[in-house]
């Protein structure tokens, strides 16, 4: 598989099964481009989280080929995975905050793992917590935070290191509409100002409408519902959400 210029992710006939169970993802072939904004939609159990796990390198596929940042992820030695994970920001479905660390230390974790000097870490984390409205909860530990607060900490942790690709699993599920919009604007700002590729898994149709330039990937029973992969939303006049741009197989 050869990368076209500017391809950040390329899946080719990817399948995933857990153990001897049937495949949860089947024949996925699509491409993601730098600086694009993608929504991943689908009903519960459609395979969104499994696909995201492949994207944030928590799982290797059972078959097929995956290239990310120009490298073959299937044959990539395990010891080289951290180099690529540092390019990603991830908002996990259940947040996966480190419970015994404060909100501040959770957000600081990616920067500290990357060796950022402590004064810069403190400034950046303080600013980020203020931006997500959690300055007053900086020293609180996750069990004492509400679901929405935990979600904002998880998002702050995912974006603080300026990832090349942000992957978010239902990132606005536990916050009020106002905060959901604010977080979505954060993703957009990352996307437009920093050039971060954004992939957001959601089943919130209202959310899709708020990012008009986004592209939609629809999963149905482990398969992309249209072979074109990621599709434009809202549909073009005369088209539908399930129809892609004419003459392309890829995400745009």
């Amino acid at each position, binding site marked *: 598989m050869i990368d076209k210029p500017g391809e950040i992710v390329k899946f080719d006939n990817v399948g995933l099964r857990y153990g001897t169970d049937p495949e949860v993802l089947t024949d996925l072939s699509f491409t993601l481009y730098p600086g694009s904004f993608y929504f991943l939609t689908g009903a519960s159990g459609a395979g969104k989280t499994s696909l995201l796990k492949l994207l944030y*390198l928590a799982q290797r596929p059972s078959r097929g080929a995956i290239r990310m940042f120009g490298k073959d992820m299937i044959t990539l030695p395990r010891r080289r995975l951290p180099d690529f994970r540092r390019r990603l920001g991830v908002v996990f479905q259940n947040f*996966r905050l480190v419970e015994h660390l404060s909100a501040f230390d959770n957000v600081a974790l990616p920067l*500290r*793992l990357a060796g*950022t000097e402590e004064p810069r870490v403190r400034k*950046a984390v303080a600013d980020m917590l203020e931006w997500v409205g959690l300055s007053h909860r900086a020293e609180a530990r996750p069990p004492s935070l509400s679901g929405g607060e935990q979600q904002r900490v998880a998002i702050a942790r995912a974006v603080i*290191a*300026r990832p090349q690709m942000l992957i978010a699993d239902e990132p606005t599920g536990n916050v009020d509409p106002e905060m959901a919009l604010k977080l979505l604007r954060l993703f*957009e700002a*990352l996307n437009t100002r920093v050039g971060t590729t954004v992939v957001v898994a959601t089943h919130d149709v209202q959310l899709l409408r708020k990012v008009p330039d986004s592209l939609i990937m629809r999963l149905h029973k482990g398969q992309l519902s249209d072979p074109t992969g990621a599709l434009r939303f809202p549909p073009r006049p005369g088209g539908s959400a399930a129809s892609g741009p004419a003459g392309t197989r890829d995400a745009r």
Partner: protein
Amino acid sequence: MIAPPLADKPSREAAPVGSRLAASLIPTSRFGGAMPWVIALFTALVVIAAAGGLALDNLAGNARAQLSGAVTVQVVEAEPALREQKAARAAEILTEEALVRSVRVVPRAELVELLEPWLGEGATSGEVPIPALIDVELTRTADTAEIAALSRALEAEVPGARVDAQSDWLRPVYDALAALQYLALALIALVACATAAAVWLAARSAFANNRETVEVVHLLGGTDGQVTRIFQRAVIRDAAFGSLVGAGLGVAAVWVLGRQFAGLDSGMVAGGALGLQDWAAIATIPLLAVALAALTGRITIAFALRKML
């Protein structure tokens, strides 16, 4: 839209884990687990075993140094006057030997005093023939062939004279001391294995308890090296505490035992006293315990990490 306050783009390279981060990621309460106390116990045992082994080594070395450079000549003759003559002649011959530094014919009164506890009145009555004894100090440690040559030269001139290397008498004692030293070494090796096993179990348990944290650190770009160092710091901290406490207990026990043996006022036991070098060797035990624990912890975590993506 207000731009989000993002940090400067950080390095994509793995960075050393700072002490603050490492300390915070593994939430073990300080000295709370069993591992420090197990290491303390094992370190104390190693210190006592090592001190015992070193004392036995000193004791055997001193005795060997005193005895290996000396022989005893017995002149066996029932007739007292002839025995005195033969002893004098043997002393003359020995004095001429290059191997011999000094010769002392043990006075009869001294011999009687030595034998009286065993022979009773027989020693003083003259009814029991007591051989004449000559203490011979050699210029150096003689081997078996040289002792045999000396014996032949003496036997040719003084029939009935017999040369005994003093070290031969104590060979069984040396063998017993050597066996005890091997026992101490074996005990140290066993305790080291037990320590490694304890650290292995503790590290595995800590890893299992913190698996979620490890996975998150991995997914945020943490390397195996960073994760290993996080756990290793916890292991080193616990091992340092345990080994210092154990070394303290062990040294105290050795000191008390040393005082007890010193009270025996025996020349042989005094030869087993620990010197500065011995104490220096004992001082390395807690350091070695920490190094062993750190290495075991590192290997354990490295193997556990290999099973994760």
